[in-house]
Each structure stands twice: as structure tokens, then as C-alpha cells.
């Protein structure tokens, strides 16, 4: 069986499960059946794509089905880039299905989730496989609609209907941009096969327009600022394993679309394209993490952090474009590999963190961090894996997040060779933005873990929480293990990514397999190298030797006592630092500019017995400054046009006449 047929059969399998789920959905065992078959199919698809990625350097396997447009058919193709993204999709899908086996039992309305879950996975697989513009757009819409249905699964909860609406609007807008982009690419002859688009020459004007349209289309799905507004609404609204898929995987499918068009179909890039991508990436990274820092809802915090990571990936892709445009092939391969590595890493830890948030949600019924706390005692295993995810996403060694950020910084250091002045100034500035984002991510995840899992419980729900089921734990532990493995054996990942850079950029990073001790070397060993395995061994050795020495020679006595409370014994848990107060220093530093943040203190007069209150005023400037006026304008235009529906027949006739005359005039002047 050729690999693409293998993948397509898996997709067919997923679609069959979706139909099966409609039939089964009201039965009791539906959850177990659907998720276990989805898990099996995802694993089969995963095995197929991993094998094809590892084996195939330049191999391509394609398939044309006689469906869709009669003169076009539906083209599907599996190359190195597609198989990498299939690995990301199916690994995420398998983990989410495993998690769903446990989590799905707590779902109040499984019949709203079960049919769409496999359909959503199938949609993402199809987008990656599609090889002509028509099937690409069709699959893209299928994916969007399936995920929209999942966002609306619990549509009666407050905010979810709005989330679904905003998502639908933004998704339509994104598809419109993609439609125009493919229209431009197809040219006047209307060649929709990717192979023909790839072979065609595109004028710089068309290339620039396509780049901007792709940034709008793929960027709105991935969450680039300022098109991100739907993401923190929609991702948390879905059930947690779907949130994990949307944040960890669907944003990657959007990034795949961007890479496919801009790097593969569009031909050699111009350097000015990279300036836009770099700028958007850097700004998105910092804005995303600052939004996350201000957030009290655990799942929304994670969704905002997804925006940050998408920004990092786009910045890295921008670097790759800049190097590619200037013929610096090694550096381009480095930046591109870093971007792909971060795609993989983010799919690991973001899925893990959303699973953790889902576990907290099932166990306590709360997403608001300021009502949680102390869960490390009640959910020890969940809190352990969540901690692993937090350390990994904060880019701390020896976990995987650090490796990809390290590679990106190495790519930034390659850029003084770039000849253009705009890039010379842009690249260090973006490097600074990425460094700022990395540091803020650390702060943000100290907050996420510290407020949710540490301290004392802030509500009875958190007080009475318990550990979650074994399936959920298994899914989280597997992802945590991947986070560690990709962190300590990065050379294997980099080598596995080399067929992609060879196919797309015609160059690759040095072969890492030959490096002693499994180190990684981006350009040359004299310039920089990193060895996650040894760093981990060193830390373990020195920590354990410290423990040994101290427990051997020092006092081992330990006494439990109340925490020191400055004379106030037994202060209420409300006296702890909450998420809002934890963010206060950073809010004061960055928030006055970014959010027009203001603290209002309501201090009662002496003798008044009502409590003093502190109110925090935050403004989402993107929403209030752009979307609200836009929605207002659209509403005004609709209201004005509405009058046209209540005209007399005479006016309609004169309108028709006026239109006719105008069109004839245009025609006369035109020709």
C-alpha cells in the first residue's frame, strides 16, 4: 500500500467512526467505543507518517481521486513536510483520544462531541494531505466547521455562544483570504493543482499579495495578532481534549498552510516578505504572553500562551525567509528546523497543559485560578505532569522547549551576514522581543502552576478535589515523557526534520547523529553546541550528591509547624496571593501601556463597615480599538442597506434602470 493510500484509509476510517458515532451517540458505551477506535486509527496513521518521514528523503507519494471538480479531481500527496505535520496531527489525535477515554465520561452531552471529534481529526489530516487548491479549501472548511461544532458542544454555558459566533466570523474571513490567495496563485488559466502552481512563475506583485493574504488566512487560524481575538474565546470553550487539539494541533495545520504556500508554492522569497513575518511574529509573541499573564481563567491563559508560541514560530519562519532570500542556505535550514522543532514541541506541551487544565476542571469544576489552589496535595500526579509541561513551555533546560528556543537564538546570531539594513535592525529587535517573551512565559507559568496547584485551597471545590482517572493520567504522562525525550535527544529530532529542509530549502543542518555524546551543533562545534542529556545528568548528579552529603552529614530532623503569619494565626486562604495579585508587578510595568490598566481602590470611610475593594480595569486595545468599531461600522452599513428592502416598486424600477445605465457606461468606458 502506498503511504498516501495508507493515510487516506486512516482518514476514511475516521470519517466512518464519525458516522458510527452519530448512530451510537445515545448509547452508554459510545464514548468508550468511539475514542478507542479513534485512538487505534490515529496510531496507525501516526506509524505510517513516522515511517514515511524517517525513510523518505525526497520521496513523494500521490493519489488522485475522481471526486470534486470534474475537470480537476481531488489530488492528495504525501511528502516530507506533509508527513511531519501528519505526525503532529496524529500524535495529538492519539493523545487526545486516550485522554478522551477517561475525560469523555464526564461529558454532560457526549452526543454533541463524539461525532465531531473524529471528523475534526479527519479534517486536519485531509488539509495536510490535499494537493490542489480546491480540495485544500474544502478540507480547510471541513476542519473549521467540525471544530466550530465542538466549540459549540456546550452552547448553553455563558460565553460559548459568543465564542462560536466570533470563531465562525473569523474562520469565514480566513477562508476568504485563502480563497483569494489561491485564486491569485492559480492565475488566469485557473490551474489549481499544487504541482502546476509550483511550476508557474509568479510576478513579485502577485507573490507579495499572496503572502499578505496567507498571513491573513493562515494567520487568523493560527492566532497572529491582531487576528487572534477568536482564539482565546473558542479554544477554552471546547471540551478540554478538543481544546488541546485546537491549540496544540489545529494552529499547526494553519502554520502548515502558510509554509506550504509561502515556502513551497510561491517560489524563491524576497527579503521584504521576511520583514513583515518577523515583525508580526515578534509582536504576536510578546502580546500573547502579556495577555496570558493578565488572565485568571486557566484555559484562557493556555490559549493566550498558544498565541505566544505561534508568534515564536512565525518569527523563526521569518528568519528562514530572510536567510533564504539572501542565499544563506545553512542559516535558513537552521531557522526553518527551529520553527518545525517548536511546532512539534508546542504540540507536546500545549496538549499536556490543556489535558492538565481539563483534569482540574473535571476534578473541581473550576477554571478560575483564583478559586483553586493547593491541588498539589489532592492531585499529586496531575500536578507533577502539569509542572513538567510548565517547565517545558517556559523554555528551561533540559526540556524540549529550551532546545527549540535555543536553536532560534542561534539563528538570530547568524543574521549579521544579512545585507539589508531593514533586516539588520529588525532581527536584533525581534531577538529582543523573543527573549522578552521567553522570560515572560516563565513568569506566566509560575503564576499558572503556583496559583492553581500550590498554596492553600481557595474554595470548597478545590478543597475536595481528587485525582483523575487513569486514561487521562496515561495521556499526560506519555506527553510529559515526549517533552523530556525531545529535550534530551534533540539530535534525533533534528535529523528526522532534515528531509523537509532538503525538500523545501535545498539544504540541511549538519548531521547530528555523528556528534559525540548526542550533542547538537547548529552550524559548527566551535560556534555553539548544546547537550541536553549531559545537562540533565549533571543536574541530577549534583542534586543527588547534595542530597546524599546533607542527609549523611547534616541534621535530618524535621518538624511540622504552622506557617509564619506575622502574628496572625490561621489567616484565611483569601489572604494568599491570587492570580490577580501575582500579575500586579508585571501589570504595572507593561500593562499601563498595553492594556491601559488602572487600579481603582474603593476605601470606605471610617466607621463604615463594608469591605474595601480593589477593582482592576483592563482594556483589550485590539478588541476595543479595532473590532468594536469594525462591528459598529458593519452594523451601521447593514442598517442603512436595510432601508433598501422597504422601497416602493417605482424606486426599485428606477434602481434597476440606474444600475443598467451605470454598467453600460462602465462597459463603454472600459472598452
Amino acid at each position, binding site marked *: 500500500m502506498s503511504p498516501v493510500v495508507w493515510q487516506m484509509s486512516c482518514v476514511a476510517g475516521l470519517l466512518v467512526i464519525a458516522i458510527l458515532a452519530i448512530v451510537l451517540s445515545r448509547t452508554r458505551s459510545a464514548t468508550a467505543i468511539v475514542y478507542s477506535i479513534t485512538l487505534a486509527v490515529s496510531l496507525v496513521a501516526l506509524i505510517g507518517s513516522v515511517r514515511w518521514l524517517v525513510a523518505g528523503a525526497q520521496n513523494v507519494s500521490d493519489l488522485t481521486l475522481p471526486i470534486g471538480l470534474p475537470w480537476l479531481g481531488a489530488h492528495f500527496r504525501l511528502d516530507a513536510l506533509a508527513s511531519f505535520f501528519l505526525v503532529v496531527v496524529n500524535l495529538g489525535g492519539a493523545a487526545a483520544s486516550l485522554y478522551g477515554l477517561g475525560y469523555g465520561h464526564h461529558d454532560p452531552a457526549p452526543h454533541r462531541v463524539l461525532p465531531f471529534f473524529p471528523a475534526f481529526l479527519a479534517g486536519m489530516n485531509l488539509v495536510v494531505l490535499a494537493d490542489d487548491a480546491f480540495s485544500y479549501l474544502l478540507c480547510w472548511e471541513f476542519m473549521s466547521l467540525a471544530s466550530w461544532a465542538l466549540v459549540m458542544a456546550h452552547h448553553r454555558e455563558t460565553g460559548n455562544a459568543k465564542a462560536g459566533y466570533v470563531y465562525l466570523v473569523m474562520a469565514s474571513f480566513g477562508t476568504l483570504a485563502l480563497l483569494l490567495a489561491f485564486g491569485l496563485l492559480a492565475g488566469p488559466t485557473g490551474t489549481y493543482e499544487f504541482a502546476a502552481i509550483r511550476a508557474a512563475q509568479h510576478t513579485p506583485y502577485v507573490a507579495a499579495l499572496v503572502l499578505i493574504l496567507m498571513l491573513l488566512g493562515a494567520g487568523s487560524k493560527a492566532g497572529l495578532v491582531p487576528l487572534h481575538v477568536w482564539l482565546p474565546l473558542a479554544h477554552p470553550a471546547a471540551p478540554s481534549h478538543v481544546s488541546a487539539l485546537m491549540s496544540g494541533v489545529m494552529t499547526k495545520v494553519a502554520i502548515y498552510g502558510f509554509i506550504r504556500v509561502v515556502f513551497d508554492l510561491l517560489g524563491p522569497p524576497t527579503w521584504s516578505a521576511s520583514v513583515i513575518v518577523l515583525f508580526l511574529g515578534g509582536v504576536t509573541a510578546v502580546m500573547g504572553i502579556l495577555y496570558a499573564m493578565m488572565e485568571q481563567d486557566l484555559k484562557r491563559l493556555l490559549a493566550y500562551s498558544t498565541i505566544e508560541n505561534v508568534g515564536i514560530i512565525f518569527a523563526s519562519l521569518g528568519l528562514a525567509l530572510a536567510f533564504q532570500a539572501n542565499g544563506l542556505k545553512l542559516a535558513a535550514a537552521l531557522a526553518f528546523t527551529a520553527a518545525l522543532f517548536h511546532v512539534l514541541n508546542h504540540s507536546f506541551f500545549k496538549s499536556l497543559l490543556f489535558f492538565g487544565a481539563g483534569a482540574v476542571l473535571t476534578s473541581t469544576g473550576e477554571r478560575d485560578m483564583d478559586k483553586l489552589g493547593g491541588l498539589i496535595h489532592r492531585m499529586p500526579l496531575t500536578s507533577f505532569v502539569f509542572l513538567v509541561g510548565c517547565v517545558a513551555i517556559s523554555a528551561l533546560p533540559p526540556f524540549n522547549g529550551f532546545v527549540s528556543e535555543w536553536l532560534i537564538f542561534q539563528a538570530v546570531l547568524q543574521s549579521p551576514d544579512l545585507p539589508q539594513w531593514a533586516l539588520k535592525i529588525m532581527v*536584533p529587535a525581534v531577538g529582543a522581543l523573543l527573549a522578552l517573551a521567553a522570560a515572560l512565559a516563565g513568569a506566566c507559568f509560575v503564576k499558572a502552576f503556583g496559583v492553581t496547584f500550590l498554596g492553600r485551597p481557595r474554595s470548597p471545590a478545590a478543597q475536595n478535589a481528587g485525582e483523575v482517572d487513569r486514561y487521562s493520567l496515561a495521556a499526560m504522562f506519555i506527553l510529559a515523557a515526549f517533552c523530556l525525550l525531545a529535550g534530551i535527544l534533540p539530535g534525533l529530532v533534528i535529523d528526522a526534520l532534515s528531509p523537509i529542509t532538503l525538500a523545501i530549502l535545498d539544504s540541511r543542518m549538519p548531521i547530528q547523529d555523528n556528534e559525540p555524546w548526542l550533542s547538537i551543533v547548529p552550524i559548527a562545534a566551535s560556534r555553539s553546541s548544546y547537550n541536553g542529556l549531559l545537562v540533565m545528568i549533571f543536574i541530577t548528579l549534583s542534586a543527588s550528591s547534595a542530597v546524599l552529603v546533607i542527609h549523611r552529614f*547534616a541534621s535530618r530532623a524535621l518538624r511540622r509547624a504552622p506557617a509564619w503569619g506575622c502574628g496572625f494565626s490561621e489567616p484565611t486562604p483569601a489572604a494568599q496571593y491570587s492570580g490577580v495579585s501575582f500579575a500586579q508587578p508585571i501589570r504595572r510595568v507593561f500593562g499601563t501601556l498595553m492594556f491601559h490598566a488602572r487600579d481603582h481602590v474603593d476605601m470606605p470611610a471610617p466607621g463604615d463597615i463594608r469591605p474595601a475593594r480593589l477593582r482592576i480595569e483592563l482594556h483589550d486595545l485590539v478588541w476595543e480599538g479595532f473590532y468594536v468599531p469594525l462591528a459598529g461600522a458593519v452594523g451601521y452599513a447593514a442598517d442603512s442597506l436595510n432601508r433598501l428592502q422597504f422601497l416602493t416598486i417605482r424606486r426599485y424600477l428606477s434602481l434597476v434602470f440606474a444600475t443598467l445605465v451605470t454598467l453600460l457606461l462602465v462597459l463603454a468606458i472600459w472598452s
Partner: protein
Amino acid sequence: MVVISDILVQGIQMALVLLLAPLLTGFVRKIKARLVRRRGASIFQPYRDLLRLLRKEVVLADNASWLFRVTPYVTFAAIWVAAALVPTFATGLLFNWTADLIAIVALLGSARFFLALAGMDVGTSFGGIGSSREVMIAALAEPAMLLIVFCMALVAGSTQLSTVANFMASSHVGLRVSLGMAMIALIMVALAENARIPVDNPATHLELTMVHEAMVLEYSGRHLAMIEFGAFLKLLLYISLIACVFFPWKIALFGAGPLSYTVGAGIYILKLAVAGFLLAMFETATAKMRVFRVPQFLGAALMLGLLGTLLLFVSRSF
């Protein structure tokens, strides 16, 4: 033979940083005391403090979790590994290639990450106030540090610290504006990272003005000893870093004879003493700033680092 000497140098370095770190802090405290005309404790007092803490029992808050008990060892280990990778008296350390400067910054970041979490573990306001302010300072100090790293790496063509030190020790560096900016920025970051005046006061006992000390307020006994030791090591690390990059005078180059190692070690201790003296002078002469002035201080460091890097990017074309 080469391998044995490599291992020896690396081993000596790891032991040396452990041995010297408390001494450096003791020295700084002594000088500070003398500058305000106190007699001050002996410069060996930090060792005694550590031993005393090790002998005491640990008083653990009722709801402290495993994370609280693990953190002292994790932070100590991360800082120790980082300190072992910064050349002190000799370049060409055996394990320099495992982690470059960016990784060293990230290792220190890991230590701080866990310490900030531990501050929130017990659920008292002091821990929270310390942690939240610490991450605010870190959120500005870390990018500044990374830009300084970029600046040094662009000059030396490597992020490998031994290579950087080798390059700086060679004669063809000359005076560069960007390196000057990087040095000033690095000193500012070092003051912030080590919780020194004017950013934080290591000697204060008023909780509301503390950052680092508030965060570790609940620690006692051997746990506190580990954290204090980590703090001593971090100060030594930053001074070694400044010394090996900007003042690599007489540092023993890779493969040099035992004599130059000895000279290197002697000069290194001298450098530590000079740096400690300057630090004490500076701390005595300045006042601590309000917490919300710190962002401006670190923002200046960030801008200096960025300017230095930008100058390097731009100057390549001339």
C-alpha cells in the same frame, strides 16, 4: 594525559567555586561593615552560618508540599552546574560544549523558576509578594542578559564561553563601544539577579521591602543552607562571568602548563577580591530604589544590550 588534565581542571573548577563562594560573600560583608566603621563578622562567617544551618532541624510549614522540599536541591544543583561552566581561572573547560552561555542563562532561569514556585507553595502573602516581584525582575533581567549574550557572541563569533574567553584574552579585540555597553548592562543585570542594592537589599529584615528574602522566608535548616549556598554561588558566577569576558587578564588558556594554571588561580582570587571590594563600595554608596523603579533600571540595561547588539549588526557593513 590531556584528558586527565581536562578532567582535573574541570574538577578543580567545580570544587573551587564551592569553596570560594561563601568566602566571597563573607569578604563583601566584611568590607561593607568596615566602610560604615563597624568591625563586622569574620570573613569566614558564611561557612559557619552554613554549618550551623545544616545542624539545625527543619521547620516545615504544615501544608508544604514535596515541591517545597525538592526546590533547594534543584536550585542549588542548577546554579552549581552553571557555575562549573563559567571559566574562572582557566578556559577550555571539559564540559563547556554541553551548555553555552544561553544555556547557562537558562539554567539560572530554572533555578529561579523553582524558587518562585516554592515561594508560593506555603500560601502566605510573603512568599507571594516575593515570588511575584522576583518574576517581574526576572522578566526584565533575562532578556537584557540574553541581549548581552548576543552582543558578546557576535563579537567572539561563538556562544561557547571558553571560546569567548579565549577570544577576549587574545590581543585583537581592542576597545569596542558595544562591549562597553554590554559590560555596563551585565553589571546592572548582575546586581539585579543577585538581589543586591539598589534592586534588593540582602541584609534587610523588613519583609515588605524584600524580594528575594521574602520569597525564601519559610525556609529553615538545611533547606535554607542550600538556598543560601546557591545565592553565594550565583554571586561568584556573575563575577567570574564579568571577569572572564571583560577582564580575561592572565586567565590560563587551554592546554597551558601547571604554572600558568597556578598564576591564573592566584589572579582569579585577586579579581574576586577587587570585584567584591567594588561591590561593597557601590552598595555602601547607593540607596535601595523603590520596587517600581527597578523596571526603569533594568529597562536601561535592556536598552544598552540592544544598542550594543544593534551597533554590532550595523557596524558589520562598514
